[in-house]
């Protein structure tokens, strides 16, 4: 097998969101090409937004991606409010925070338990896994359901929120609903920590390890947070969010419908749970801190396969932080709706947020009538794609050396596992909203 050319093809990656495949070309026993082929169709959101009224933006842009719809919503609303100089009340800030926590719980529970865990336990799907691990699967689905319920109560719908507006909310959650959510969140901590113990005993393979540059937003206040104002790298660099277009350089590759990204230095980087823990894991508190110590006793390794456990730690954090948010919201005076007064004016604004899969940027420019002139969205998965290919190469080289043991099937499942560890969201990655050609970058 040392001589000659062969191609290893995974024509359609399973258990990820969207449509993509992996192609590895091996020549004379060494890896020549590694392509992550994204064949999801383009929906050209940028063209859809142009000329739309700013009040329509959230309802359109949230539909870039279902799983991330709440974080796209919050990023878009923050960007638009920054453009219009709309102040944010404490209640709006907290409610959006709770919405993001709910969406992160849902997204992480989906990925950790339903999409990634079958790899670690040797099943082809969560449905098959339920035959042996009924209790665990039922717990995971309940947890996911709770994430959805939070989004329903705050956002009005689990997928593509409707209640979220520029300047406020159509309807505020009833205190009884917040009390119920709080109790349900509190009930998750014990089973989650039991699962952390179980996870700590599941070995994580090391065949995709390589030096990584991690990138995440600096939390807007002391603590582990999903919203922030500057962009930090694990090499110690820090840039204000306003410079994101200078820092994140995007480029096209022939084999993919999605753009790739690198830092201005040319280095590829990773965003997401692993990066957040690497940069800000020391800020975790309570059970999340314990879970972090239990699952990452020697710190955060440079190996993306650990991303799944990083998501698990963040899930514990989101549950605890969700309880804090409910308490804060319940302590506020009771109202039916909340809407800040503002007037329409021309402006440009950026909204950056840590989505479940990593840093997400939205930027809009609107004219004096409130029509969209310019829109730009950079999604986490688009930023990770170049790294996914690097990791697939490392993994393919490593697995080829071990190939005697399992043949091509083992190699393929190993590569799938690496791609899946990133929790790629391909709908998001393809539907990068770009700058209009005439706009100055």
């Amino acid at each position, binding site marked *: 097998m040392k001589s000659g050319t062969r191609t290893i093809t995974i024509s*359609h*990656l*399973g*258990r*990820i*969101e*969207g*449509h993509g495949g992996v192609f590895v070309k091996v020549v004379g026993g060494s890896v020549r090409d590694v392509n992550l082929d994204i*064949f*999801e*169709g*383009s*929906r*050209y*959101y*940028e*063209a*859809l937004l142009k*000329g739309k009224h700013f009040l*329509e933006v959230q*309802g*359109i842009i949230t*539909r*870039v991606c*279902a*799983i991330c*719809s709440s974080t796209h919503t919050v990023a878009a609303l923050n960007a638009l409010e920054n453009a219009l100089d709309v102040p944010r009340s404490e209640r709006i800030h907290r409610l959006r925070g709770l919405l993001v926590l709910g969406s992160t719980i849902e997204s992480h529970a*989906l990925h950790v338990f339903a*999409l990634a865990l079958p790899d670690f336990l040797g099943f*082809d*799907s969560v*449905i098959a896994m*339920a035959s042996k691990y009924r209790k665990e699967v*039922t717990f995971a*689905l*309940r947890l*996911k*359901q709770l994430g*959805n319920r939070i989004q329903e109560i705050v956002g*009005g719908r*689990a*997928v*593509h929120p*409707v*209640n979220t507006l520029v300047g406020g909310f*159509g*309807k505020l959650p009833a205190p009884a609903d917040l009390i119920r959510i709080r109790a349900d969140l509190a009930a998750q901590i014990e089973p989650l920590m039991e699962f952390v113990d179980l996870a700590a005993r599941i070995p994580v393979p090391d065949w995709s390890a390589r030096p990584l540059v991690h990138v995440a937003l600096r939390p807007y206040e002391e603590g582990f947070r999903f919203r922030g104002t500057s962009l930090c790298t694990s090499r110690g660099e820090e840039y204000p969010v306003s410079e994101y277009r200078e820092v994140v350089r995007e480029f*096209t590759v*022939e084999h993919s*419908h999605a*753009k790739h990204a690198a830092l201005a230095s040319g280095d590829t980087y990773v965003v997401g749970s692993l990066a957040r823990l690497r940069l800000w894991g020391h800020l975790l508190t309570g059970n999340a801190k314990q879970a972090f110590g239990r699952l990452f006793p020697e710190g955060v390794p440079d190996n993306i396969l650990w991303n799944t456990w990083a998501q698990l730690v963040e899930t514990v954090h989101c549950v605890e932080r969700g309880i804090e948010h409910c308490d804060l919201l319940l302590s506020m005076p009771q109202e039916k*709706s909340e809407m800040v007064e503002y007037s329409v004016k021309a402006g440009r604004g950026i909204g950056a947020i840590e989505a479940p899969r990593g840093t997400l940027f939205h930027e809009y420019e609107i004219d004096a009538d409130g029509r969209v002139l310019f829109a730009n969205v950079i999604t986490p998965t688009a930023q990770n794609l170049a790294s996914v290919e690097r990791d697939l190469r490392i993994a393919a080289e490593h697995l080829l050396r071990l190939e005697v043991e399992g043949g091509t099937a083992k190699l393929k499942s190993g590569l*799938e596992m690496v791609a899946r560890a990133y929790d790629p969201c391909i*709908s998001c990655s393809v539907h*990068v*909203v*770009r*700058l*209009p*050609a005439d706009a100055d970058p």
Partner: protein
Amino acid sequence: MKSVSRNGKPKVGIFGLTGCAGDQLQILNCEDDLLRLSERVEIVDWVMVRSQNDHNCRLDLAFVEGVVATQRDLAALKEIRARSRTLVAIGTCAVWGGLPAMRNDIPRDVLQKEVFRQDVVLMDTVEARPASDFVPFEYMIPGCPIERHEFLKAVHAIMAGVSPELPKVPVCWECKTRENLCRVVYFGEVCCGAMTRGGCQARCPSHGVACSGCRGPVEEPNFDANITMFKDRRISWLEIARRMENFSAPVWFKMGLEQEVGGEERH
């Protein structure tokens, strides 16, 4: 329903063309109900959730979400149709075209240059159109995304051998039964509820937000009454038509929107 499989369990496939995967996510969001359903049917092809799929077997029941936006989508859709006994379109994209079909008036090469800022080679891209334009579907469940209860209700009906009954009333009707204040009459907003098919229990107006028309047009909307209602409140018909177009542009044009708009300039 009769099954193609030996164990008597109907074989089910769930597929996504170009889209946000929101309707597949709503199926996953059925959680416990999905686990129970999986005991009665055999889900054999669902790439989003399984890694070992049978892409060739005959299917008793299949669901498709999304638009056809690539040649690859079209080929996949035709294959799915050929192997499925009962095919159900799920979500507004598959039924009406949804957001991706909003601006089919702009040629794709113009869009490509605008979005990618350069000529992209080998890009597979065609005008986005609803899956229902290309192959016949036995049933259609609209919604952006679909409502979980409608999906479950439809599956159970189909398995019992009866046609699923989906609401034919407009969102407006459901809004009245929930005793919401009308977004048009009381707030002067551009609300699509009178022309949009119900089933969502007037979700948006119940949150104090105007209906955005995400479920597509109701059968035989009363254009004349709508035009009068909006005109009386100084809302131009063009505004409401543009809002309806967001989610169902292809069918909206077929329904004679252009004539209704009359001499008004399209933006």
